[in-house]
């Protein structure tokens, strides 16, 4: 009750309230600017006071993010933002905690932590800027770079099989898994908001253009001419339809999706209805792996959203239960535990 009153009384915050006094130092034209703009747009809509928001990042271009927001923020160690965020959220579950990471930071050096963050279902929001390249170290292949990618460290083409971030998140048990694109600002804002609203660990992969070292990596998905033919917008309860004319769809065949050309209106009936809340992650995996298949569209939107108890809840609930059972801790009493004897 009290919290609600506070929020109501507080003056409505705006985008400007979330801007810090530091000038962003990303390259001109970098996709990071667009993501920052959408985050600033969404934060005031959440009704969370600024002092209760904490942004945590690791190292990399994207990880400069916290400096540009007038919230609490920590710019930490390469790959380790999830660990710091875990401490913050467990220490004070009342905070809205956001992790900003990249494909190198989150999936290479920090892959381990992200995995455990997901499986524990800590109620934080992870935004992973995927530009399929190392930017800050000036252009080496990353764990999401495609095979054959020619970079400074792979002059003859990368022979490292890439990781699929969505599949990784699903596999690790993340309870909210979504994808969006830096240039698709409205979609991005919508997904950010939904992630924030989800109680549990939210993961958003954002395709982000690094115009310096990997320009155009997602051009097909962002240029007005090709975009609609290559992007599949996932919507809960809706059939999987894509294409400029909305004339193509996906249906299940055996253990896979196949493309159906929609000639008649009834053809829609055979299409797969997207169900975010499906406890069985199989369909979400199939969608995640559409990017492996030539001629198939790239899904964006929410792949999966399920409810599970959050980690911080379980941790604090246990503390509460033990305290109820044993009574509030008493130092003198634990000093005396075990064998005590008296010397007169």
């Amino acid at each position, binding site marked *: 009750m009290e919290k609600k009153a506070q929020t109501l009384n507080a003056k409505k915050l705006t985008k400007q309230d979330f801007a810090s006094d530091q000038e962003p130092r990303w390259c001109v034209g970098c996709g990071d600017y667009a993501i920052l703009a959408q985050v600033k747009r969404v934060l005031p809509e959440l009704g969370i006071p600024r002092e209760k928001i904490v942004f945590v990042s690791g190292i990399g271009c994207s990880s400069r993010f916290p400096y540009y927001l007038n919230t*609490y923020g920590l710019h930490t160690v390469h790959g380790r933002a999830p660990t710091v965020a875990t401490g*913050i959220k467990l220490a004070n579950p009342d905070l809205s905690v956001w992790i900003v990471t990249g494909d190198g930071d989150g999936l290479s050096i920090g892959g*381990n932590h992200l995995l455990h963050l997901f499986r524990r279902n800590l109620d934080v929001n992870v935004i992973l800027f995927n530009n399929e390249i190392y930017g800050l170290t000036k252009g080496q292949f990353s764990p999401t770079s495609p095979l054959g990618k020619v970079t400074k460290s792979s002059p003859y083409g990368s022979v490292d099989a890439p990781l699929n971030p969505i599949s990784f998140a699903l596999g690790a048990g993340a309870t909210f898994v979504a994808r969006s694109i830096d240039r698709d600002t409205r979609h991005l804002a919508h997904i950010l908001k939904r992630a924030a609203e989800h109680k549990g660990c939210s993961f958003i992969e954002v395709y982000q253009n690094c115009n310096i070292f990997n320009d155009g990596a997602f051009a097909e998905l962002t240029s007005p001419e090709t975009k609609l033919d290559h992007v599949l917008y996932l919507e809960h309860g809706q059939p999987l339809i894509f294409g400029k004319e909305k004339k193509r769809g996906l249906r299940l065949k055996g253990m896979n999706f196949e493309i159906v050309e929609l000639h008649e209106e009834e053809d829609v009936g055979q299409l797969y209805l997207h169900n975010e809340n499906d406890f069985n992650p199989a369909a979400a995996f199939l969608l995640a792996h559409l990017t492996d298949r030539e001629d198939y569209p790239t899904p964006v939107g929410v792949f999966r959203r399920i409810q599970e108890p959050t980690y911080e809840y379980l941790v604090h609930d246990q503390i509460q239960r033990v305290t109820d059972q044993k009574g509030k801790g008493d130092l003198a009493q*634990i000093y005396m535990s075990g064998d005590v004897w008296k*010397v007169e």
Partner: protein
Amino acid sequence: MEDAKTRSRKELEHVIVRFAGDSGDGIQLTGKQFTRTTAIARNELNTLPDFPAEIRAPAGTLHGVSSFQIHFGREHIHTPGDKVDVLVAMNPAALKTNLRHLRDNAIIILNVDAFTEKNLRLAGYEKNPLETGELSAYQVYPIAITTYTLKALEDVELSHKEKERCKNFFALGVVYWLFDRPLEPTIEWIQAKFARNAVLAEANVRALKAGRNFAESTELFHSAFRVLPAEIPPGLYRNITGNEALVLGLISAGEKSGLSLYYASYPITPASDVLHMISLYKNFGVITFQAEDEISAIGSALGASFAGKIGVTATSGPGLSLKTEFVGLAVMMELPLVILDIQRAGPSTGMPTKTEQADLLMAMYGRHGEAPLPVVAACSPSDCFYAAYEAVQVALRFMTPVVVLSDGFLANGSEPWRIPDPNDLPPIQVKFAEPNGPFYPYQRDPVTLARNWAIPGTPGLEHRLGGLEKEDLTGNVSYDPENHDKMVRLRAEKIDRVRNFVAEPEIVGPEEGELLLVSWGSTHGTVLTVVEQLQKEGHAVSMYHLRWINPLPEKLGTYLKRFRRVVIPEINLGQLASLIRNKYLVDAIPFNRVRGLPLQVSELTEFVKSLLEE
């Protein structure tokens, strides 16, 4: 009757007893019971448990031997002792591995039932040592411990195997008689421990009594002993291991500061017990987090500190290596954080269950860049309580990570601890920054140089911290050369000022003389024993034991110059020695043994004497 017997007992100043057997023989438990009874009989004491690294080493083998040594006496007991006076060996392997620890003419109590062909072979004996005369330098008492135990339990409703397992209490009964100890404390303990299994309780009590009666009625020993009680300050006592003491110290600091603890770690020998124990105390509001790795443990602890808790993490050498990057970040962010390093023998995996002091330089310098932090070392198991408590005080007051050094010897070793009154512990005051006027994250307290601690949730104090160099005052990212130089010096100066806040150690002995022993950590007991002995013999020897190794105490420099010689004994290759030589330009002489064991009194005495004679 009783009087006549007691009069015939020989009085001893101090004794070293060692129990040894298979790790399945209940040796540690037996040792702990003997310790407890000894403490209740008001002797000073010190113990050394030693068990195999393997979880279940094969029975009867040399590397499956577990042992427990206790040194007790009327006064000046600071170490587990060097040479054993009484060995209880439950099998041939226990005999073989422990012979080298015995003094000449030591008493050996053997379970002859275990000297079977198979066990002899497993222990690597070609012939039965009881028959070859190779034990002639000792007083050997072969007792059919298993047979007698089974006999005493003949009509008890237990399986053969269960009965056999009571044999350690029989052995304990024998040793109790040898030292004229009461059985009651152990009987009470057994009854409480096996409250739910009256038959088992009864069996163990019977075995214990049978052992005592056997020793008494057979007039087994040529002579029996008595160790007179020590003058121990009155109060309530308990036994405490170093790891238990760390936990209680941390919980106490949490309570006293009014902040709760956030404890995160990844299991590692010999630090895991800290996690186990602290996890029990959730009703103190302690948040415990078993992290996915060492890095996550410290990262989350640092995050919790940012959010206003006392972040604590514990580990041992290999884990500290993994944590170092975050320690550097904590130095940069100037947040409170306590890092416990329970040192073990390294490098690499080394000897995980053995003790060492070789992480000192890592604790001091094991980070990139100029990243100073306070380092405190506990000197005994119970001192771990105060070391942990003080570390929290310093971390909060100076907004800095603090490393607490313990080691395997302190962690598992125990000693009687006079239980303090929680109200007597020094208060810990914490002040979070409050929103009034302009807020500067790196504004410093003029006395301590600590910066403001502003925690998320406080309106108006939103700020960003990170690993990039900070501008003085504002904390904004800065690449300015002069600012960097200034900040590097400020961070160092802050740590230096910890000296004004912590108690200065007292010198043991006169402030000048022939030779000064400078020590730190768990070698305290050994060095103190040596110094007391030499002082008694009339040598001008003193001891200065360092508690805070960073910053070093003011007086150290003066003392170093007032003695003709300075010796620094350590269980490493001279790490404190190199720190001191470097800082004070004195020709300190290192004394080093790196065997995974505490230093021995006899060796150090000999070394010091040879220097005194030069």
